[in-house]
């Protein structure tokens, strides 16, 4: 490699001769760098691969949950079935407790040409209709009793098993006795699809319904509302408390043994397993303070405790990152300590604080274990009006659905995971946007 000869003409010009080239290990150094780059890229590829696998598995299983099979047929609200003895004027309970599934069953049997005397056939027809028609039809009739005796075109939920079969999730090669849906029902299903009576609709129920043992009617409504309440409580409590604590510790508190001890403890708290916070919440908020179990309030308080260390650590780091020259400048002008902090330091630390807060919130949003202990793993059908009413949370709902046996809950579990991921992505995007908005150079 080394160039020994120098051209004579150059030497003639008085250019000094080049000394023997030294081996300064360039080749080794570049090889090390190339190796490191390769490792880095491999690490990123590895991470991306698993992220992709995770997303693929969740989305491929879950995307069907956003559509639900529904049956649209003319339904005769027969007075015979609903109110045989015409007591509705005197007994308002009559319309509430009428046997509406039979109304739907008869309507579907009529469309499919099943004889009213064919009990086995009627049972099979019944197996294609979601039991949620009971509440749907009841609400329709109670709201407008005039429809009794008329025929209306109504869209209602198909049974979860029919829904699974329609989405191709039931293996029809399995022996008829071993699957949830019979050959006869499959035949009817095909008839209904051909006539356009059975079709997939966007699954609004997934977002507004509460818990249900019937997968087709089960939704995330309660969980979403519960999670929202909790996030609100966590934000309202942990942001001011966390920021105030960090500002005091970082800017005002004397640096001594005691504050060192506090700092160590805060760092330790951030690493405490979340289930311990659940036990703490159970002992303090439920047993001692007497707050209701399963309530979003208690969940929010527990998650606040859990999030506080994260926010404090992030805020302190953000405050530390503000250059001391800004503090000197303000103090040198005669600003008080508090004015210095609130006029200059805090605004500059804001992006970091917000990022830390939203990461803490996202962490809290996905937290399950502590909520199990305070009873938020419950069957809650009605959307809670206040944080004091029983509710569940998104990750807990995922946990509960993952434990269900029905095929239709599998797609709902993945669907719920997608909803949770979307919430997390939205929060992270929010963090980035806020950071951009507040970011200032100095």
């Amino acid at each position: 490699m080394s160039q020994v000869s120098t051209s004579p003409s150059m030497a003639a010009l008085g250019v000094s001769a080049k000394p023997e080239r030294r081996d300064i290990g360039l080749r080794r150094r570049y090889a090390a760098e190339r190796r490191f780059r390769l490792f880095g890229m491999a690490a990123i590829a590895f991470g991306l691969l698993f992220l992709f696998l995770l997303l693929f598995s969740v989305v491929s299983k879950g995307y069907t949950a956003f559509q639900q099979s529904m049956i649209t047929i003319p339904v005769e609200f027969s007075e015979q079935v609903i109110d045989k003895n015409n007591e509705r004027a005197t007994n308002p309970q009559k319309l509430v407790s009428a046997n509406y599934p039979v109304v739907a069953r008869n309507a579907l049997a009529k469309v499919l040409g099943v004889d009213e005397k064919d009990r086995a056939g009627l049972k099979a027809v019944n197996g294609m209709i979601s039991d949620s028609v009971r509440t749907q039809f009841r609400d329709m009739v109670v709201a407008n009793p005039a429809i009794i005796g008329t025929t209306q075109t109504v869209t209602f939920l198909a049974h979860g098993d029919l829904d699974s079969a329609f989405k191709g999730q039931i293996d029809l090669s399995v022996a008829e006795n071993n699957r949830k849906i019979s050959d006869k029902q499959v035949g009817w299903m095909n008839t209904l699809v051909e006539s356009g009576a059975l079709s997939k609709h966007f699954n609004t129920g997934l977002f507004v319904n509460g818990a249900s043992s019937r997968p087709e009617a089960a939704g995330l409504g309660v969980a979403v509302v519960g999670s929202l309440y909790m996030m609100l409580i966590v934000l309202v409590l942990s942001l001011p408390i966390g920021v105030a604590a960090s500002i005091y510790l970082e800017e005002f508190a004397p640096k001594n043994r005691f504050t060192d001890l506090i700092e160590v403890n805060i760092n330790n708290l951030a690493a405490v397993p979340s289930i311990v916070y659940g036990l703490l919440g159970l002992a303090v908020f439920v047993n001692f303070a007497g707050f209701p179990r399963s309530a979003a309030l208690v969940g929010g308080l527990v998650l606040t405790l859990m999030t506080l260390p994260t926010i404090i650590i992030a805020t302190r780091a953000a405050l530390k990152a503000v250059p001391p020259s800004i503090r000197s400048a303000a103090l040198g002008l005669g600003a008080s300590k508090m004015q210095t902090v609130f006029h200059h330091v805090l605004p500059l630390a804001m992006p970091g604080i917000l990022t830390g807060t939203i990461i803490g919130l996202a962490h809290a949003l996905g937290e399950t274990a502590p909520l199990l202990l305070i009873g938020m793993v419950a069957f809650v059908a009605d959307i809670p009006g206040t944080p004091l009413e029983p509710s569940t949370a998104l990750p807990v709902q995922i946990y509960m659905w993952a434990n269900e046996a029905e095929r239709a809950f599998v797609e709902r579990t993945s669907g719920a995971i997608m909803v949770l991921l979307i919430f997390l992505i939205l929060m992270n995007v929010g963090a980035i946007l806020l950071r951009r908005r507040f970011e200032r150079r100095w």
Partner: protein
Amino acid sequence: MNMMSEAAVEKALDKKMNDISYKMIGKDVSVYYGDKRALYDVNLNVRENTVTALIGPSGCGKSTFLRTLNRMNDTIDGCRVTGRITLDTDDIYDPNIDVVELRARVGMVFQKPNPFPKSIYENVAYGPRIHGLAKSKADMDAIVEKSLQKAGLWNEVKDRLHEGGTGLSGGQQQRLCIARAVAVSPEVILMDEPCSALDPIATAKVEELIHELRANFTIVIVTHSMQQAARVSQRTAMFHLGNLVEENDTDKMFTNPDDQRTQDYIMGRFG
């Protein structure tokens, strides 16, 4: 700004210097950082409407002394000051003295330009605003304009007052910091190596500015540059290893100092 002619200003200043009045008096000032002693019984008086330069090798305590004058050392953990420093007739380390008020009277310009990451206008207006010096928006505008003029920056920035102060060049930033300090109308301005981060042209502008500011303010400046001390100051104090070696008229200091160490330092034999 000042309607007096250059000669009249000089004359007035000379007269003031003849009947010396001391703006700040430091008596037996010692400073400790924890167990380490940084200043040893310094006795140094700062004359009114005079530029006093503090010189000496690195770590000699000149910045430490400067920072005792507006109690910026208070912000350092473990820093302790003994002795007595007065501003006019007030002992500035008296418990009854409010440090915020003191700093409104004794302003400071730092080594590295440190404008707030806000607009030029906001940078200058911040001090008067927190001290409630402006009654109205027009008042504030006037203060900002006057301060920027005093700092010789007005013509350069008058069209972009609402742009960021951090977007200015280093020299402009430092003059903005001077304008910011001037806007509070302090009595004394402390400058801690104000030109060390600036190029020679920006340095010349700041030095010229210091010269003009002398008419209205008492200035104490720490500098590493002998030439700068000679150019801008009337009085010079030489520090060495935490001791005040000598304090004298600048002219005398640079031609015929009393102390051998000053002589050696100025001649470049140590430091």
